[in-house]
């Protein structure tokens, strides 16, 4: 191809002819003009004098919020949880295909977890198009404003997750308006993914305190969760409904269990099989049923709408207890057992009567 050269532009310096010594003075005048002009800030680029520049490494030009350079990953400040769920949308959207993701797995179940195990972006081939940030449904990948990426180490431009992680507070410092637009949805989605993340998966790796805090929290939750319903039943005040209901049901279930165990025992060798322990269990169940029924009866009249339910449960418990007692009585057991069963039946019947009154 022919490139036509020689388009020389002659600049008119308007100097004219000089006398001896004038050149020096003229040169000094240029220096003086520029030195004086340098104290004035040139801000509309239409003047030839003034300070055009800013002192770059010390001060920087303010970048617009939507400026985009290279993608980074966000994590939540408070919990340290990463917003990324490894959904691969960015990797699919990326035109030069420089995003590589590995999804995390639950080590116990082997199932996929909405978090990334490793996240690699090859900065050297990234073209800063921003399609990954546009495609991300979780607002986890955002375009950074950092532009000083010069390096003599090309492999250093392969950024791993540890290099890409930035706190949300960093993103709000560079693009507050853009984050405000998506904040609510992003945080809501993050809460959803945290629920599905076991152990400390999904917390940015360098935040050891956050990981420790999460471990403590999970341990506390694990310690608190199993005894919670058991503790609630006896500790519940009499005025509350649901624990009573629970207690009554529990008693009924126990009574039924005791009653169910006895017929099986009575068939082959009743006298030998019906141990005092069984009779004790039946007694205990009957007592519990009676107590529950009593408790229900004692509950204040204010809870009218709940009362029928309580009554029903109590009656049911009493009937079951009576049945159990009957079953125990039918067996040709020791007189002590018979007595206990009878007593339980009577007590249950009484409780039911009291309740119905």
């Amino acid at each position, binding site marked *: 191809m022919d490139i036509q050269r020689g388009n020389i532009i002659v600049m008119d310096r308007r100097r004219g002819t000089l006398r001896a010594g004038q050149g020096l003075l003229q040169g000094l005048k240029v220096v003086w003009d520029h030195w004086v002009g340098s104290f004035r800030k040139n801000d509309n680029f239409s003047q030839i004098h003034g300070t055009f520049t800013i002192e770059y490494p010390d001060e920087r030009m303010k970048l617009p919020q939507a400026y985009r350079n290279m993608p980074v990953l966000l994590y939540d400040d408070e919990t340290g949880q990463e917003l990324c769920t490894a959904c691969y949308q960015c990797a*699919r959207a990326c035109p*030069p295909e420089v995003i590589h993701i590995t999804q995390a797995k639950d080590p116990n179940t082997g199932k996929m977890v909405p978090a990334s195990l490793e996240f690699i972006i090859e900065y050297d081939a990234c073209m800063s198009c921003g399609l990954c940030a546009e495609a991300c449904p979780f607002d986890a990948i955002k375009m950074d404003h950092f532009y000083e990426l010069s390096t003599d180490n090309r492999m250093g431009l392969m950024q791993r997750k540890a290099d890409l992680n930035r706190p949300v507070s960093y993103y709000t410092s560079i693009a507050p*308006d853009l984050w405000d637009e998506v904040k609510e949805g992003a945080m809501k989605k993050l809460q959803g993914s945290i629920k599905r993340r076991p152990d400390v998966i999904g917390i940015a790796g360098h935040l050891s305190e956050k990981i420790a805090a999460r471990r403590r929290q999970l341990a506390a939750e694990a310690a608190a969760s199993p005894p919670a319903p058991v503790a609630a039943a006896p500790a519940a005040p009499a005025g509350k409904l649901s624990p009573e209901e629970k207690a009554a049901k529990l008693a009924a279930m126990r009574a039924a269990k005791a009653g169910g165990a006895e017929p099986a025992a009575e068939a082959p060798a009743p006298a030998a099989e019906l141990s005092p322990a069984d009779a004790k269990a039946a007694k205990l169940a009957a007592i519990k049923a009676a107590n529950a029924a009593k408790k229900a009866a004692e509950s204040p009249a204010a809870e009218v709408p709940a009362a029928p339910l309580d009554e029903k449960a109590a009656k049911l418990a009493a009937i079951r207890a009576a049945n159990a007692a009957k079953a125990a009585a039918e067996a040709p057991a020791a007189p002590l057992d018979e007595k206990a069963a009878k007593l339980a039946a009577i007590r249950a019947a009484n409780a039911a009567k009291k309740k119905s009154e």
Partner: protein
Amino acid sequence: MPLLSAEELRTRLGRDLPGAVLEAAPLQIVPPAHGSKGPFVTTDVLVEPTRLLDAALYLRDQVGYTYLSDIAVVDYLTDNLLEVVYRFYHLDGGPSLALKVRLPRENPELASLTPHWPGANFHEREAYDLYGVVFTGHPFLRRIYMWDEFEGFPMRKDFPKQGDKYIGAEE
């Protein structure tokens, strides 16, 4: 000190190159930009695509705006056109002047400025790579960011952002 406004340039171009300057129709920006009010009307000079080279050479040789600083492309999807923006500076300083060209999104073709501004080479290759604008007369019009086998122009607004575009595409 060259201080030529876009308005003055439009009148001068209209006088010296009849038929080269077009009246700029308002453009829709979807979604609307921050703080925008209604359609966007450019104040820069809109040039007829076939007369771009004439206008650029006029700007360089007659007006003195010799430095071609940048070539940018804007995709106006709703108006179904691509706008190529050429930005020129005067070496003595002062504000820049822009020449704009509007092309259809299907088969956009434009005369290359590379024979006259060697520095336009990479700018035009970038515009070709990312938007698909073909510059006739360019000595080496190949993709500059993406690999040669890449299909599509990634910075166009209708470039798909979701789904598997390449994985298994050739099967």
